[in-house]
């Protein structure tokens, strides 16, 4: 029985990370294929788990589990870290394993000739292990450990080209921003520990309905804060566009398909708890809806092909959050899966484009690539249409389910999401036309990558095309409900997609940047910068903290505490003689001081000894 070895899904990638990190130098090009063993095992395990769940009589149950005491305590059993496999875990393992496998294969071509490949593949394997732990954990503690570790891997991989100052900066920014969110998660854990006394999902869910409302709301909001940080939702979205400084395959894996979706996964995972708080649901819906449309606007204004995809990712994650806020958790998970397919495809496609154009990322310097890179172009087109929500590709079905879910709860926010859909189709068409059609405006010689780069594109294109039919399967895996297509919504959404695509297509006819001269141009530049989120955070957080620290250093530490300590005041001069007289070596002064100490001690002993 394979499922009993669930821990191996974490342990094997970990072992491979260690192996690749230590002896990767001697593996040559084979390093990618050794590393690929890890996600392959994860994928296999996930598929087995999914089949087991689907064939089981009772859906939604745990198939296998294990635990080890991590922090023993004499008073009680201690805190355990454990793993458990159910439908959701299986599904996530399939997504993680599949994308990671394809990304590693793609990397063997994309990263060929780079320095530091052992570091790259070791970190990717470590990421696979951490992400597996995150989804496999049977409680908040294991989740948190995986959660932090994927963040660290993301840090290391964004900063892979660390000699580029922008990459180094982006890595730190990504880690710090997500860590702000992690505080929420950590506090939620602390609160749950205090209220429940156990951090395993089973125990928490068992107690959930008995918890006071304030606690439920606090926990849900804190967890939401953590999820917002990880999934780059407003206002903690600022790190994701910068994270594009990392290698493109990394963006595909971490910043499109898996890690950034961890926030959505978290809320789906703890749905029995989360669904109890109406406040949290409202906030989630608002954050998701707002992020979806704001990020879509920003995406429409980008020049950098990867930044388009980054903002698009933020926007699509906003759709998922909105779905969660509306209670349509099955739809959110469904969209997570389809999004992983088509967004990973688009990222890898953009990687192929960047690779082919010799490192150029500006869409205004591309054009006409469809003819020169037919496979990339064709697969990109599939992914783009899926993202835009054109039937019958995957994105259409999942987005439709989200819109349907939100429409039933908050029609206003559904309208916002329709707007975001329109913008999505718009920027998809604009980017596609600028990059792939028209005439080539760059200076290089665009060419298709090797078969190891084309194969993942083709596989993902198939996934992006057909995963729309998996909605029912996914709902069955997690024991949720899968509604039929709502004809009205479906029609409206398809129509909006077409309109958006057309308008985007025609906007892109002129392949030049409007520049800051017009008011539209000014707006575009603001939107391109992510609506000033960076400036806001700098002004509200980074600046004050740095300034306050500098003030503390100079005034409190320097002028107050150290001055008292060194005794420069007149009253302390006598004591200061003791400090400084080492230079003068005044032994007699020391003798006087020790004599005084002895006298004081005698006096004390005499005082204390009175009673005897």
């Amino acid at each position, binding site marked *: 029985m394979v499922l009993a070895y669930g821990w191996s899904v974490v342990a094997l990638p970990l072992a491979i990370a260690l192996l690749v990190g230590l002896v990767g130098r001697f593996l040559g090009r084979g390093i990618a294929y050794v590393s690929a063993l890890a996600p392959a095992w994860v994928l296999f395990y996930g598929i087995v788990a999914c089949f087991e769940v689907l064939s089981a009589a009772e859906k939604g149950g745990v198939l296998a589990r294990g635990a080890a005491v991590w922090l023993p305590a004499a008073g009680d059993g201690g805190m355990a870290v454990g793993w458990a496999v159910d439908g959701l875990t299986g599904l996530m393992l399939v997504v993680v394993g599949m994308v990671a496998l394809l990304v590693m294969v793609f990397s063997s071509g994309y990263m060929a000739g780079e320095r530091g490949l052992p570091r790259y593949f070791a970190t990717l394997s470590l990421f696979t292990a951490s992400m597996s732990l995150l989804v496999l954990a049977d409680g908040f503690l294991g989740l948190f450990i995986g959660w932090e570790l994927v963040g660290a891997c993301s840090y290391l991989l964004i900063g892979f080209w660390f000699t580029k100052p922008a990459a180094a900066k982006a890595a730190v920014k990504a880690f710090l921003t997500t860590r702000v969110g992690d505080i929420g998660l950590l506090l939620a854990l602390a609160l749950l520990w205090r209220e429940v006394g156990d951090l395993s999902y089973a125990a928490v869910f068992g107690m959930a309905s008995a918890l006071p409302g304030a606690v439920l709301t606090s926990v849900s909001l804190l967890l939401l804060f953590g999820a917002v940080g990880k999934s780059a939702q407003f206002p903690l979205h600022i790190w994701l566009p910068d994270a594009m400084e990392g290698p493109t395959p990394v963006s595909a894996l971490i910043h499109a398909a898996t890690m950034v979706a961890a926030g959505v996964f978290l809320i789906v995972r703890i749905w029995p708890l989360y669904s109890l708080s109406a406040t949290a649901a409202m906030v989630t819906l608002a954050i998701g809806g707002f992020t979806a449309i704001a990020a879509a606007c920003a995406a429409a204004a980008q020049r950098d092909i990867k930044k388009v995809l980054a903002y698009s990712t933020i926007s699509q994650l906003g759709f998922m959050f909105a779905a969660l806020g509306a209670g349509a958790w099955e739809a959110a998970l469904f969209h997570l899966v389809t999004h992983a397919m088509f967004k990973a495809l688009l990222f890898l496609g953009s990687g192929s484009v960047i690779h082919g154009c010799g490192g150029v990322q500006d869409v205004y310097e591309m054009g006409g690539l469809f003819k020169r890179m037919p496979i990339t172009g064709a697969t990109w087109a599939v992914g783009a249409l899926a993202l835009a929500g054109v039937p019958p590709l995957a994105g259409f079905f999942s987005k439709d389910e989200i819109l349907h879910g939100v429409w039933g709860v908050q029609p206003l926010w559904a309208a916002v999401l329709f707007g975001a859909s329109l913008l999505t189709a718009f920027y998809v068409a604009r980017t596609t036309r600028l990059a792939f059609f028209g005439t080539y405006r760059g200076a290089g010689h665009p060419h298709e990558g090797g078969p190891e780069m084309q194969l993942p594109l083709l596989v993902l294109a198939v996934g992006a095309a057909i995963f729309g039919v998996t909605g029912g399967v996914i709902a069955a895996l997690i024991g949720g409900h899968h509604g039929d297509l709502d004809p009205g919504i479906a029609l409206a959404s398809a129509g909006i997609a077409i309109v958006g695509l057309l308008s985007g297509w025609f906007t892109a006819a002129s392949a030049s940047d409007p520049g800051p001269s017009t008011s539209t141009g000014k707006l575009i530049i603001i939107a391109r910068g992510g609506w000033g989120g960076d400036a806001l955070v700098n002004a509200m957080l980074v600046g004050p903290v740095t300034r306050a620290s500098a003030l503390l250093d100079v005034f409190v530490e320097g002028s107050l505490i150290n001055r008292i300590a060194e005794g420069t005041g007149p009253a302390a001069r006598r004591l200061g003689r003791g400090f400084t007289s080492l230079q003068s070596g005044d032994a*007699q002064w020391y003798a*006087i001081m020790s*004599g*005084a100490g*002895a*006298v004081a001690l*005698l*006096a004390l002993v*005499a005082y204390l000894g009175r009673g005897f």
Partner: protein
Amino acid sequence: MSVESAVFTVLGIVAVAGGLATVFAADVSRMAIGLGAFLLAVAGFFVYWGATFLGVAQLFVYVGGVLVLMLFAIMLVHRTPDGSPRLETRHDVSAVAVAGGLFVMVVTALSGVVPDTVDHGLVTGTTELAEALLGPMLAHFEMAGVLLLVALVVVVVIMRGGDER
């Protein structure tokens, strides 16, 4: 006032006066005389208490040895043409406080447990001393010998090192 207490008082006055001269005298020779007086007075105490051998040893070792050594040292290091130099003393309130405080503390601490005066004499001859030294105190005796030897070697090493510089 009995003869005993008179002797005690005189010896005490001499000892204290000698000690004060040692500590306060500004002149090197006066300091040496003060130290000599102090050491003699201590030897006198020993003899007065009947510890004759100890008193004689004090007389020989200190007055005959240490004091002479000290005078030699003074002559060696204070070779100034214009007679004896002034010995500078940095009088200090804190030093007075420490010394005075210690005095008060120790005297008050010990006053209850220590007999005020020594009124009866010790009747020991050299035989008892020799028996003690070679009997129960043999280890101490040997250690004192080793100590003296070590001190001798150390002095030689220090002085030779001084020559090299």
